[in-house]
């Protein structure tokens, strides 16, 4: 039984410790801290039983008694893998920062302090089960990146970062008001105001005001990702931020927004979700197309990745808003994949940047001639970015497209799939213009340094591992995703909820509880409480050759004669 607070505050502790030790050793302290946190999170993930209760490793204490705000953390199917992605991401970027001049800069202490605080804040946002705690960490998570970019960024960084911070805070401050309003409105007269997510889900927010509340939450999350109309801060923010920091910022922080949708906006405001579903879907699809076209025409390598992230997050939002378990589980899987792919991609751009001095694709070309190992690793990352079938990104995208096809509308899935083709174009264009063709005018191609290749190998290995067995990520998310989207799906139309249940017999038990909560206000019965009955009979583990008799689905005895199959 591990105490989640240890995982949460470990990075912050190491951040402070880093301040005390002499500045030469700060970076190694930070690296040790990051690896320890990573180890702890891996242990927690392994310890999570998929068929166990919805909330595990719960730690619960009062934070602000007067307001009814509790300090409550828990590991659920939704946030487990994202927390692991966060620890991997921060470990990756801290090790990367430790190796670059950023790490030995005379103000290295600041770098690792801010990264540590940011990690704690991100983990806090992911693990929080209390609405106000989530909003507090959601806001806090941005501030370290402000300091990192203002001090260590490049170009005219201060106005760029201030624009980024204020832009994202517009959303999250609106969310603060919405969070409080949700807590307050959900309290039946006389009862104590409570911001616990499960509690509010049971109490049910009055349907009248769910609309604007969902709008506030959606605004905060869409600005954070970012998505099409409100991505003004993306270009300057990404250009100004130092690359090690940008890798984790782009890979991890946008996923907290996705988690926000799944854990808070949809389950707490089912009616609001149902009403505004189409607005978010349209935004997502337009983001995919718009960002893809921009990504395939811009000449700055960093901007290609920036806009590709917008497009990928457009897909993830599609999956989330399809209000179907496979769509939501696909979105979660895609979040993890996109995170890992982005870590590798930004490191590759950094390596290319070192060799060209600038990140302009027109100066690059022919990097592969002297750097075969780097080229192979970069190709695998490129395949992950463009979601080539075979990588887990494809599985994610397949589930999202299926969820959208059946949950939202076939036309939407078809338009979104244009994004898949465009993704192939911009990902390959980035790879070819940098590594293939003749040696570019400015670039001096040389093989990646040993540490660079070793570090780049980490995301590549993760991509391959996920590609071979994406099941563990999807399985964990399945029950939790069903629970969170069920009430919203029921709000859209009752028969959708029925066919979700039909689709996934294993969600039967969890669904009864959620079914009662789906009835809008004040339903009793804890949705979280009833753990899902044993998951689907995970067959197929047997390696032996079993001729499956298609009609009955049972393995058939070798000798038995079966009709249908050939004689």
């Amino acid at each position, binding site marked *: 039984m591990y105490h989640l607070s240890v995982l949460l505050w470990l990075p912050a502790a190491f951040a402070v410790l880093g301040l005390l030790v002499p500045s030469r050793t700060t970076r190694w302290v930070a690296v040790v801290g990051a690896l320890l946190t990573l180890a702890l999170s891996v242990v927690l993930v392994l310890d999570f039983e998929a068929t166990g209760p919805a909330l595990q490793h719960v730690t619960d204490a009062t934070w*602000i*008694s*007067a*307001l009814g*705000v509790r300090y409550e953390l828990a590991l659920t199917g939704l946030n487990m893998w994202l927390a692991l992605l966060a620890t991997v991401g921060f470990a990756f970027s801290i090790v990367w920062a430790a190796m670059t001049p950023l790490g030995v800069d005379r103000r290295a202490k*600041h770098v690792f302090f801010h990264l540590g605080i940011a990690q704690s804040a991100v983990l806090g946002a992911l693990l929080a089960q209390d609405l*106000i705690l989530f*909003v*507090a*960490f959601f*806001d*806090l998570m941005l*501030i370290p990146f*402000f*300091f990192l970019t*203002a*001090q260590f960024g490049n170009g005219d960084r*201060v106005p760029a*970062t*201030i624009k980024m*911070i*204020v832009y994202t*805070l*517009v959303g999250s*401050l*609106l969310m*603060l*008001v919405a969070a*409080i*309003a949700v*807590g*307050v409105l959900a309290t039946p007269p006389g009862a104590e*105001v409570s911001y616990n997510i499960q509690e509010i889900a049971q109490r049910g927010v009055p349907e009248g005001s769910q609309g604007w509340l969902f709008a506030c939450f959606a605004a905060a999350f869409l600005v954070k990702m970012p998505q099409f109309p409100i991505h003004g801060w993306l270009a300057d923010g990404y250009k100004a931020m130092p690359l090690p920091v940008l890798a984790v910022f782009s890979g991890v922080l946008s996923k907290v927004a996705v988690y926000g949708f799944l854990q808070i906006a949809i389950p707490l405001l089912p009616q609001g979700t149902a009403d505004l579903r189409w607005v978010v879907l349209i935004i997502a699809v337009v983001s995919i197309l718009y960002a893809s076209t921009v990504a395939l025409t811009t000449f700055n390598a960093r901007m290609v990745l920036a806009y590709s992230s917008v497009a990928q997050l457009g897909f993830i939002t599609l999956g989330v808003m399809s209000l179907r378990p496979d769509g939501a589980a696909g979105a979660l899987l895609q979040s993890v994949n996109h995170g890992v792919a982005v870590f590798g991609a930004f490191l590759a751009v950094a390596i290319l940047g070192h060799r060209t001095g600038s990140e302009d694709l027109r100066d690059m070309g022919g990097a592969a001639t002297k750097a075969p190992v780097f080229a192979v690793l970069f190709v695998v990352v490129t395949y992950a970015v463009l979601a080539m079938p075979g990588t887990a990104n494809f599985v994610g995208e397949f589930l999202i497209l299926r969820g959208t096809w059946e949950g939202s509308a076939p036309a939407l899935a078809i338009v979104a799939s244009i994004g898949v083709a465009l993704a192939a174009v911009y990902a390959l264009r980035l790879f070819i213009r940098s590594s293939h063709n003749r040696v570019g005018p400015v670039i001096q191609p040389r093989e990646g340094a040993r540490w660079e290749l070793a570090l780049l190998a980490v995301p590549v290995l993760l991509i391959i591992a996920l590609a071979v067995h994406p099941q563990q990520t999807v399985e964990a998310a399945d029950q939790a995703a069903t629970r969170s989207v069920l009430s919203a799906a029921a709000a859209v139309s009752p028969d959708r909820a029925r066919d979700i249940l039909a689709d996934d017999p294993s969600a039967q038990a969890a669904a009864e509880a959620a079914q009662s909560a789906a009835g809008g206000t004040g339903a009793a019965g804890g949705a979280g409480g009833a753990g899902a009955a044993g998951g689907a009979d995970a067959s197929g583990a047997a390696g032996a050759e079993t001729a499956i008799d298609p009609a009955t689905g049972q393995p058939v005895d070798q000798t038995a004669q079966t009709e249908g199959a050939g004689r």
Partner: protein
Amino acid sequence: MIALTAAAQAPDIDWAGLSSLLALFAGAVVVLLVGLLRSRFARETLVPVLSIVAFAVSIGLAIWQWDEEGSLMSGALALDPLAMIGVVGVGVAGIAAVLLSIGATAPREAAHGEYHAMMLIAAAGMAMFVGAQNLITTFLGLELLSIPLYILAATELHRRRSLESGMKYLIVGSVGSATLLYGFALIFGATGQLDYAGIAAAVGTEGLRDDPLMLAGVALVIVGLAFKASVAPFHQWTPDVYEGAPTPVTAFMATATKVAALIAFLRLFDVALVGTSGTWAPALAVLAAIAMIVGNVGALGQSSLKRLMAFSSVAQAGYMLVGVVVATQLGVQATVFYVLAYVVMTVAAFAVIEAAERETGHDGASSIAGLGRRRPLHAIALTLSMLGLAGVPATVGFIAKLRIVQSAADNGYTWLAIVLVVGSMISFVYYLRVVARVWGDDPETTTDVAATRGQTVAVEEPEAIPARAGDAASVPGLVPGGNDQPVVVADAPRLPITVLAVVSGAAIVVLGVIPGPLMNVVEDVARAVPGLF
């Protein structure tokens, strides 16, 4: 004769209750006398120490009287946790101001004795103002705290700006208090009562809700108090006075006056006039909204730090007013919590501004450029205070803002909460710009402070106004050249200021992460306000 004597025996005064107020007055007298001594040591160090002792004693006594319930001076002053928290707040602000004044030019110019005496008397005025339960004592408290501040603002007699700020504060301040007085007169006319309980009863029974005299009176009182708390349309004196006055005085004004004004607001509106809240609540809400927008927007383009803090205090006053508007237990708790948080954050900010001003000679934005490298402790303190004022989580500012927004959302003022949030979005821009300047180290802006230590630094005004030929005659003792360039010796900041900055910085974070204890204090303060559900 006997009857006369019998009738004229001494009134029964509850000395214990009054002790915290009397401590301040006694302190003022003692400091005044010690100030007369010839020796520099007596004046330079003994006087500040004594005034700190006076403040500390008054805080101690206030805490001692914490659980008392009742009234003093036959109903003139209230003795309840609300008043006591006011005294404590003022005491803390006073100590901070005194610490900032050590080594500053203002006390040297205005003779240490009088300077500190004025401060103590102003504090006494505030102590009276927060406890006042009678129109007379309220008006007396207000004037007792304002007049010493006029003088303090004008202490640096050789700096034209200080005099100007003093003059402006006096004239506009008097207009404000005259309006307040006229309001009190009308209320007195309408109810025939002077003490709050009487007024509350009269308003309740005789249905004075729509009596023209009463309404006009309440309106004028709102103007008077809003002026004192520097709420929007009546805030125009704040930026000029804050920038002109010497920084320690500005610090005292920004923190202590806000505590006094807000608590008086609470007591007057949530106790005496709670009956007519239907009329004044929406008006106050609109005023608060205007304050938030004007304060934040005004602060955007500021280059002088003190002027920026002035506009930010206008905005913060707007946030605090929300608690009064809501007129519920939660509202009172939210406002008192916010005020205390605001005091801590502003003290931290002014400590660093004062230190930077002593080093560079001016309070322009460039004075704190690259502070992160020169004075890391100051830089951290200023950063924490800026982030706290902006309302970033893990600082007491976030919790305070959270409480205000919840109290607003709880009572149907959700639109006000949205205005508050939009205002704080704008505030992030200028707070973060200050923080970026502190930590950024672009070389050209950092004046090379090390080189100028010890020499006289010509004060470079941010926007020097072309002095007219008429008054260029040089006055003996002034540095030649420039119409009134005062002499500023750039010397390293004294230890007390750094300690103050660090302590208040730490308090911002500690209270932000563990707000529990402060919450309990605020809870029993709210119980003291009867009549609210």
